[in-house]
């Protein structure tokens, strides 16, 4: 249902040209937020961001009645949000930053999860946690994490090298095929993956083991007796990883790499003619995106301690893409918001019988989530194709400078010709590669 909307929505948004301003424009909340955020200095961004992250981290501990979920554990929902947010950030590098429509991103998620599963599950012939294995049971998950990221990144390289010469629709079709191939391999390599039976008892971080928590705080079924259960711990772990990944991706975006990605997204031919090695940078985007997807997959495998092919259906790719498009392609904070919406809303309605002053069948609403997301995407494409928090508001480019100018802080544009990301001065400072 949401599949065609997600697939066709993206090129539409891309083709959409900035419209000329018709007098005073009303600024939407998302744009207002982005303008405000971009107008802050880096230390102020930290000063605002850190308390916000702490508040977010405390959300599943406090579980405010109106916000917490009733049909399912709120900690688990937040953990799921953390993983999807990580995926959205990774997919955003590929789709939002570089403009490569990847419909098989779930394939990378699966590769990451299966790497952890194959190396640490006792069901797997490649299990390394038992006798004679080189992984200690206690540290297995953490040790396998970088391996999972590396292998997923390599799979991105293997997929990208032949396919990134294709463009647009063709690339979308090939990546769609890749996602299915990974799932079908997992389903059919019975001797390796046990097919549909899946791999169970996947390793997870053994932290905080005690008398009350035999297997540590990350083990399934852990609870401190209050609100803090294993889901909350997984959420905290994914928050930590999100911050690290955001720092890395953010630095890339502000660098020459990011400028190359944006140029490729805008016009690949023009980018090549300006001397951007387009193939190399597309491959980089693919590999980095894949690595982040693999990281999320490894988290997922550890959390549910069980990997099975049905978790990696194509519909998940669409859901990931939905998060990116909904939140705002190209904007890191936007896609995290998109991930939150995609994960939280269905779970919010799950098991609820009343919403505001209506009596509702929450389970039915949750069941039809793909229908609702499909509809939401269609509505979004009509009214706000750039997403909730877009990468850059139409026409009001250089939002930060205009914002500052509007507040009378800086009206002279000519002192620094390069603007907020200072391409000019960095380029001048950079001596040849």
């Amino acid at each position, binding site marked *: 249902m949401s599949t065609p909307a997600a697939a066709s929505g993206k090129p539409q948004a891309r083709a959409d*040209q*900035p*419209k*000329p301003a018709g007098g005073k424009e009303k600024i939407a909340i998302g744009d207002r937020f982005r303008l405000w955020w971009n107008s802050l200095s880096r230390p102020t961004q930290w000063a605002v961001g850190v308390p916000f992250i702490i508040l977010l981290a405390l959300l599943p501990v406090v579980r405010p009645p109106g916000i917490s979920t009733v049909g399912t554990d709120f900690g688990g929902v937040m953990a799921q949000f953390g993983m999807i947010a990580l995926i959205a950030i990774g997919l955003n590098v590929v789709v939002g930053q570089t403009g490569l429509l990847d419909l098989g991103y779930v394939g990378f998620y699966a590769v990451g999860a299966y790497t952890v599963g194959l190396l640490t599950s006792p069901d797997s012939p490649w299990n390394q946690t038992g006798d004679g294995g080189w992984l200690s049971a206690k540290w297995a998950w953490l040790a396998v994490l970088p391996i999972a990221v590396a292998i997923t990144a390599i799979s991105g390289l293997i997929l990208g090298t032949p396919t990134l010469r294709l463009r647009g629709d063709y690339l979308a079709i090939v990546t769609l095929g890749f996602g299915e191939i990974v799932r079908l391999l997992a389903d059919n390599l019975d001797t390796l993956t046990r097919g549909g039976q899946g791999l169970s008892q996947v390793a997870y971080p053994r932290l905080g083991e005690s008398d009350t928590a035999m297997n540590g705080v990350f083990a399934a079924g852990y609870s401190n007796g209050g609100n803090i259960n294993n889901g909350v711990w997984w959420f905290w772990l994914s928050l930590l990883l999100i911050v690290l990944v955001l720092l890395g991706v953010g630095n890339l975006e502000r660098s020459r790499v990011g*400028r*190359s990605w*944006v*140029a490729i997204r*805008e*016009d690949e*031919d*023009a*980018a*090549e*003619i*300006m*001397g*951007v*090695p*387009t193939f190399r940078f597309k491959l980089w985007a693919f590999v980095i995106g894949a690595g982040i997807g693999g990281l999320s997959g490894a988290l997922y495998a550890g959390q549910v301690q069980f990997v099975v092919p049905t978790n990696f259906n194509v519909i998940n790719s669409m859901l990931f893409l939905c998060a990116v498009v909904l939140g705002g392609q190209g904007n890191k904070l936007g896609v995290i918001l998109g991930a939150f919406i995609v994960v939280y809303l269905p779970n919010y309605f799950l098991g609820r019988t009343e919403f505001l002053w209506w009596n509702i069948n929450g389970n039915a609403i949750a069941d039809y989530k793909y229908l609702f997301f499909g509809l939401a995407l269609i509505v979004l494409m009509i009214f706000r194709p750039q997403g909730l928090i877009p990468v*850059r508001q*139409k*026409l009001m*480019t*250089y939002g930060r*400078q*205009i914002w500052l100018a509007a507040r009378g802080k800086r009206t002279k*544009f000519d002192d620094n*010709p*390069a*603007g907020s990301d200072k*391409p*000019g*001065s960095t*380029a*001048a*400072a*950079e*001596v*040849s590669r």
Partner: protein
Amino acid sequence: MSQPDPNQPTTSGDPLLEISNMAVAYGRIEALHGISLTVNPGELVTLIGANGAGKTTTMRAISGILPLSSGRVIFDGRDITRMKAHQRVAAGIIQAPEGRGVFPGMTVQENLDMGHYARKFDSKADYDEALERVYSLFPRLLERRKQAGGTMSGGEQQMLAIGRALMARPRLLLLDEPSMGLAPMIIQQIFRIISEINQQGTTILLVEQNAQQALSRSDRAYIMETGEVIKTGVGKELLVDPSVKEAYLGVGADSGSDTSRAAAPAAGAVAGGAAGAAERPDLRK
């Protein structure tokens, strides 16, 4: 207007660009059947031809976007036949592509900054100087610095494409149909600026359908037809060459010399059936 002595093709010293027997094919269809041309340092050279003559294909092959099926491209004494497009940019072959190819979502300033992506400035002062030069050539771009490239008019986008190419400080500037789709007033302006850029010392290879404007401003010109160079000579001489006049300037046919119809060799062919066909061998002399 252009070089001191436009009647004398600058043959002294090595050519900046030398193409010999370049053939390019799209799949099994050959679009260029082995063309040869040279561009000397400081020259303004024009390629003229009708639609489908292979002008843009030539440009794309020179900038490395299309591979050659045979032939050689020598730039500044180096064989660049197998060089990738982005490496050619670094070497100094900069193209302002047909249809402008500005980055629609980037501002004018950001577009210009993409220009020196592969050819970095040694110092901030050099950057400022180059930027100032572009803005003085195109004051309109200065006014529109903060505007997104995609929201500008066709003429402004063309200016931006040329300005962006200039930010790379090209050793050879390839201009592909800068007059395409523009109003006559703007065309005049663009051509004036192209001459100015050339006089400031930039070597230019120009592809045009607007033969009148292009020939009157260029040192030398090549006339292309169906993937071959059929005539070459000094720009102003070709301008008065009867066969060229008839085929590309619309003179001699019923319509008189209207610049907007200049690039219509088909008009000549249609005008006089057998006479048009008889004219073709003449051109090849």
